[in-house]
């Protein structure tokens, strides 16, 4: 089933309306956030092949200098929760919403929101793909939605 590209799948907050907390890009993270603002998802890879997220000044396995590689933007939900209480703006106006850990096919894991389907349709193992939302001119933030054509609901494979 192809997930509907309905209103729930538009960026939750276009750049001029971004009210969520923002990253403060630093020497190491700036390329990541800038690439995301161009629609690209970058992860780090050191000369020995260790991949990591989040970006760091060193490889967390061997201590070498990591470089960048473009990630596929595809992954699966490792675990998730449906947040039903959060007093902080703007999130309290978006309840309930899904916070998930996404395992990229490259082997790294990152936190994100699953949008583009109802919170109750998210399940562990759900294939998801990235879609970037521009938060400000040089900062894009990765969001995740069910893979088009993939199993779209819990009932499909869970």
């Amino acid at each position, binding site marked *: 089933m192809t997930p509907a590209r309905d209103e729930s799948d538009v960026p939750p907050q276009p750049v001029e309306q971004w009210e*969520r907390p923002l*990253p403060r890009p630093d020497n190491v993270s700036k390329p990541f956030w800038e690439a995301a603002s161009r629609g690209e998802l970058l992860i780090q890879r050191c000369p020995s092949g260790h991949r990591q997220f*989040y970006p760091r000044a060193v490889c967390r396995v061997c201590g070498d200098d990591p470089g960048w590689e473009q990630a596929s933007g595809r992954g699966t939900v490792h675990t998730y929760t*449906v947040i039903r209480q959060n007093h*902080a703006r703007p999130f309290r106006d978006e309840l309930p919403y899904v916070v998930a850990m996404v395992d990229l096919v490259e082997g790294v894991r990152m936190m994100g929101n699953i949008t583009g389907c109802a919170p109750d349709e998210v399940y562990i193992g759900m294939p998801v793909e990235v879609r970037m939302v521009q938060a400000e001119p040089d900062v894009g933030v990765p969001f995740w939605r069910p893979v088009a054509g993939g199993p779209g609901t819990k009932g499909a494979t869970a």
Partner: protein
Amino acid sequence: MPDRAPVIVGTGLSDYPQAPDLDGVQHHSQAMQRALADCGLAKGEIDGYLDAGGGGVMIDDAVTMAEYLGIDHRYIDGTMTGGSSFEFHVQHAAAAIRQGLCDTVLITYGSDQLSRMGRSLGTGGLGRGAKRFAGPQQYEAPFGNSLVGSYAMAAQRHMYEFGTTSEQLAEIAVGVREFAGLNPKAMYREPITVDDVLGSRLIADPLHKLDCCVISDGGGAIVMTTAERARDLRQPPVYVLGAAGAQTHWNISQMPDFTDTAASRCGPIAFGQAGVAPANIDTIQFYDSFTITVMLLLEGLGFCARGEGGAFVKDGHLRRGGDLPLNTDGGGLSSSHPGMRGIFLLIEAARQLRGQAGEAQVPDCDLAVACGSGGWLSCIGAVILGREHP
């Protein structure tokens, strides 16, 4: 050779669960006064001090609190591993006492978080407009996760991998509430059922309100010294038989395995030092920030096999009258949780080993484990305490 085996000789709790007249430093101060009165040591005898801060008090870092309390130390430690800080402190203090770096150690904690901030801090979500976050938080803050949400993701994964149920998690909250009923100071004392837990509202799936700890004020203090010095003090000494800590991550997105904590690394070390096994333990005082926290610590420390926590708790081991009573003061789930509850675990374990737990007393209590979890299941500290000299 003087007997330098490290022992806990004095404990004190400040007023809890709500003490609007006390600020954070007053919790530290009151707890210290009560711990000194408990053992009969003079403040001037303290030559080691440990404080994690973290109570939201502006001045409660170790050096400032040492000044405030007037502690002329020759050993100081400000290790901060969140709620488990105090289990790490006991490990460090025990080593310092054995080594002769100091003789008599004070550990304090205090927080007025309920009176200062109220229950609205609740789920601990980030927000407040387009605030900017640096460091590792920049990769989490935009997504509206909450403190409960982090534990919820561990619970969800545990359910997925092992078939753990909400009923099984609820069993933990029900058993702890039964003990809270015996503690006149506990925040919530009315008995609850599994259905009550499941019927309470979901905060972050699959965790309900009654899967979550309370929010309170409170503080605690512990005095440790050598077995030698303890001989003529007021209370029977509680021996530190084993103490170990380990860390797997700090930020939740870096948790390597959402169903395994550092308890599986530090547990065997602590039990090895003590020369005992989980089966020998008479009571456990575990960090119960959430029901899932307890289940992961049970499995990590080896009280049951990995993935079998659900069946284990349903068997009633942890209940009053069971063979491994949990959180006999009512725990964080029902009695008090001022933010970093690890010191309460040690104090309740000591109370049980001294045979001073009243109606909640575990019969023939010789061995207890206090296990703290700090951060988001990040830093685990396990301390094995005993009534008999090792």
